């Protein structure tokens, strides 16, 4: 990493009264806008703006599996590629998968599979592509949120939409929908994704120390965030090709 792109840590990430560095309250989300069906060639697609994130998700399939020997006789093969565009970051990112994107491709795939009726499409592949065009903290849960809409847009039968949200810990505060500086210098970071219809958690990661009490509170807060995002997802699906945009000023 070239040092000209190094960022300085801000002195204060959150004020005594809970005001966050970007002015949000602890449980306030960033603006979200969703558009379903933005691509013509893909079987399903969705474009998502979430804070400064710009995410494009597309789905191909069910289709033939190449190479053939990867096909599963009792269910669809689900493949997922999470990719950061070279221009998505402050310093240009070299194209091609790095270790982080390999892990994220795996956890996103494993977050989506439980929602898909994979047994209905034996011997086929469903390919999910998540492109991060612009990254601003929370790309994995933004990616899951967009990808589950792309799956729905492709007409793939789902147990429910998968919805993601992140909670962070900053000093004594738990904050909803972690922003860029909070992601870089916060004390803990918990992304979570859920099938809202069944209340099953399909993605959960955590990095940073939390007491058992903080942990339970964090999960509840993340689920609150998901509940809110889920409404936007449903709205976007009801009106395909119409942009659903929400700037959340109040609390969730």
């Amino acid at each position, binding site marked *: 990493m*070239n*040092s*000209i792109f190094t960022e300085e840590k801000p002195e204060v990430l959150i004020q005594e009264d809970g005001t966050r560095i970007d002015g949000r309250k602890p449980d306030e989300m960033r603006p979200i806008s969703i558009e379903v069906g933005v*691509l*013509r*060639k*893909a079987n399903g*697609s969705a474009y998502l703006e979430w804070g400064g994130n*710009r995410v*494009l*998700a*597309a789905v*191909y399939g069910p*289709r033939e599996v190449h190479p053939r020997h990867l096909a599963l006789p009792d269910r669809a093969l689900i493949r997922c*590629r999470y*990719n950061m*565009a*070279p*221009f*998505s*970051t*402050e*310093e*240009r990112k070299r*194209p*091609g998968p790095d270790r982080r994107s390999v892990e994220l491709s795996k956890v996103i795939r494993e977050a989506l599979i439980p929602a898909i009726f994979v047994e209905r499409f034996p011997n086929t592949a469903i*390919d999910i*592509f998540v*492109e991060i*065009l*612009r*990254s601003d903290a929370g790309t994995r849960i933004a990616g899951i949120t967009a990808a589950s809409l792309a799956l729905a847009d492709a007409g793939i039968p789902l147990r429910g939409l998968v919805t993601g949200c992140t909670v962070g810990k900053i000093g004594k505060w738990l904050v909803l929908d972690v922003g860029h500086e909070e992601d870089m210098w916060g004390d803990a970071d918990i992304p979570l994704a859920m099938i809202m219809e069944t209340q099953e958690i399909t993605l959960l990661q955590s990095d940073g120390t939390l007491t058992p009490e903080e942990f339970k509170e964090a999960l509840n807060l993340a689920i609150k965030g998901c509940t809110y995002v889920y409404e936007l997802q449903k709205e976007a699906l009801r009106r395909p090709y119409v942009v659903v945009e929400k700037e959340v000023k109040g609390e969730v």
Partner: protein
Amino acid sequence: MALEERISSTLLKEHLLKLAQVGKRKDGRKFDEIRPIEIKEGTFTKGLGEAWVALGKTQVLTSLKFDVGEPYPDSPDKGVLISNVELLPLASPSFEPGPPDENAIEMARVVDRAFRGSDAIDLSKLVIQEGKLVYILFLDLYVLDYDGNLFDALTLSALIAFARAKIPVVEVGEDGSPRLVEGESFPLPLVDYPLSFSFVKIGDYLMIDPNLEEESVADAALTLAIDKDLNICSIQKRNGAFKLSEINKAVDIARVKYPEVMEQVRKVVDIA
């Protein structure tokens, strides 16, 4: 290619050829008619300049990033431009993940050549310390939705991204290491505005801006770039073979089309 595909490809070609014989194209365009161009508004990347362009149903997103580094030894007084095309697998069922294949590499080099051939960017203005430290520009050309004629869509998006680009000022500190001068930037020194025009030949008929169907059955394909003085600044014959007269005809059409497309560019960027 499976049997059914070959049959449908043969039938498609016959159909397009019959239409051509009566001066028509399947999507209703004339032979020398370019599909509608749409330049999206918004911020989609963290680039210095960017453009999301739709050419018909083809969509591309191009963005310019920078770094600083050493110049090439044989041009110590020039900045560096590196162009890269990614044929994203979400853009087409025929694109696969992985490093750029020969098609992506050819496209990147042909787009790049349009700007180099016309000396469109004054790279000598991108030097921080001669022979030691220069701007390295990365032009990343992202294909999002593939319905034919990527060459022209990519060159167009690159031109707009260049025209919009603001380059942060970098100075060298007393310890010899580079640092950004907070809040200062300058426009990319863009001194020419090349545009690319692609043609396919189906039978004996030359068509501009081919869509995917037309490309898939074309007997030959050709891309050329025209600069602001209507000179030819790059050519790339691709598959197939052309007669000399066909090439000259393509040049003539492209020179007529240049002002037409440039007018649309001028709607979104302020270039002479």
